[in-house]
């Protein structure tokens, strides 16, 4: 029995969901509302003591880290391979996953939190927010949530994140000019990780990701967006977030 605890089917939560759908693996979906702080509630901390989302439990055993969950799903279940057999391409897949997870991802989510999560949070009762932050188990996450909620990212931090996003886009555009998928000739978990990170970028930072500046990146996003696994994942969302994919529809409005 495979259970995935997730928020909206994008970013980190989208990774194990998409890997499971690509493989045709059945799983139980448990929606964790991060804006209601369900990830820091005692019931959830029993499942994942770190209080991070997503979490994945297979036959009673917790599998850590969203990128690692995808490797685990691919290594455990039958179905189409999501990791290249060629050792060099597999190394490249891991390089890109680390680059996305540790360099580009945190920069993109700084923008996402500043413009989406922070303003929504500041509508709430200040005392309640203080109490919510206090019970976050990891110090790093406590600092991150507090910065996002109170909007205290400095202009320098935002500018640095902007530079890293632009550098990440340039690096990916160049790679996709050389081969069809991030790691090589086949679709892999590095594509899933990259898509989850970059899908909203043409809307959020259109000056960085667009058809004239980054044609390969845009085509790659559209190709992935057409995959049945992506379409199925939308059904697991409960907010407007999934509508952000409309800009990738080839038949949709050119630019919403």
């Amino acid at each position: 029995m495979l259970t995935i605890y997730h928020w909206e089917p994008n970013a980190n939560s989208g990774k194990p969901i998409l890997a499971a759908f690509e493989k045709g693996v059945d799983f139980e979906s448990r929606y964790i509302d991060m804006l209601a702080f369900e990830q820091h509630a005692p019931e959830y901390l029993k499942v994942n003591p770190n209080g991070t989302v997503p979490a994945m439990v297979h036959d009673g055993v917790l599998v850590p880290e969203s990128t690692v969950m995808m490797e685990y799903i691919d290594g455990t279940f039958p179905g189409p391979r999501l990791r290249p057999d060629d050792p060099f391409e597999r190394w490249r897949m891991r390089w890109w996953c680390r680059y996305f997870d540790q360099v580009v991802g945190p920069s993109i989510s700084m923008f996402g939190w500043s413009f989406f999560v922070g303003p929504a949070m500041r509508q709430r009762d200040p005392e309640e927010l203080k109490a919510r932050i206090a019970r976050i188990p990891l110090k790093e996450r406590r600092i991150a949530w507090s910065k996002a909620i109170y909007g205290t990212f400095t202009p320098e931090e935002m500018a640095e994140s902007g530079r890293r996003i632009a550098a990440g886009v340039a690096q990916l555009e160049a790679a996709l000019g050389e081969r069809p998928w991030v790691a090589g000739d086949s679709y892999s978990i590095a594509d899933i990780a990259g898509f989850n990170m970059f899908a909203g970028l043409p809307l959020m930072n259109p000056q960085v990701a667009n058809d004239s500046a980054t044609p390969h990146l845009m085509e790659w996003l559209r190709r992935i967006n057409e995959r049945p696994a992506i379409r199925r994942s939308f059904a697991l969302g409960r907010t407007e977030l999934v509508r952000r994919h409309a800009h990738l529809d080839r038949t949709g409005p050119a630019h919403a």
Partner: protein
Amino acid sequence: MLELYHWEPNGSWLKPLIALYEKELPFRSRYVDVLALEQYQPGFLQAARETQIPLEGEGPVLIDQGRQITESLFITEYLEDAYPARPLRPPEPLLQARILASGRFINEVLMPAVSTLGCRAYLVPALQGGARTALATHLERMPVAYIREGWRSALNNDYPAELLEDSRRKITLAVTRLEEALGGGPWLVGASFTLADVDAFAICNSLPGLTPDLVNAAATPRLWHWLKRIRSRPAVGRALACGRGGHPEQAFAPGPEHSRWG
């Protein structure tokens, strides 16, 4: 033939050396004097698409059939994928997942912290005379910003107090986790010596000297004996003998970036 570009057998440079000797893979050793900034000299390896962006600071490069492979843990994973004989990775997907997750924590939390304290303790005093002048002239030409800033901090010895304090906090957290993980058996993941041990050992081997109050026989007995157990492996002994300075555990150059926020 495999070629490994490496400096002293410590930290990121130590991991692939251990894996190569454990797996008994013949390789050509290309010693790079990182302190003399040989990696920035004209004629040094021309970086490829991915390897032009190092994600763990100064580190080793493996060359296999003309292709560059970087990031120390991923080099050892590559060696398992390409040369599966004498495995250092168990076949079970769950154990493989735990090795990768352990590696993420080591890379993101422990490595930057040990690198900061190690550079301050050993790199700062090593930057005297000619080494100092050479670094000052090379600094502006270093292409990767966080590595350049790492060298600059060592040159100026101006590590902020909060960074040093946060580094000790991260080392304490990691050491506590490792001590707990070793409560279940002699190795970090599963019943045998794996890439997770190679990965963590390469970073922890300097800690008895660097932070003796945090890692010692009384405070962290399991970690202490695990370090001794690993050092006594013949392959690890051969890897540790690849150095030229006599104290590989004191060889530090700027490592991975501290994560910018949660």
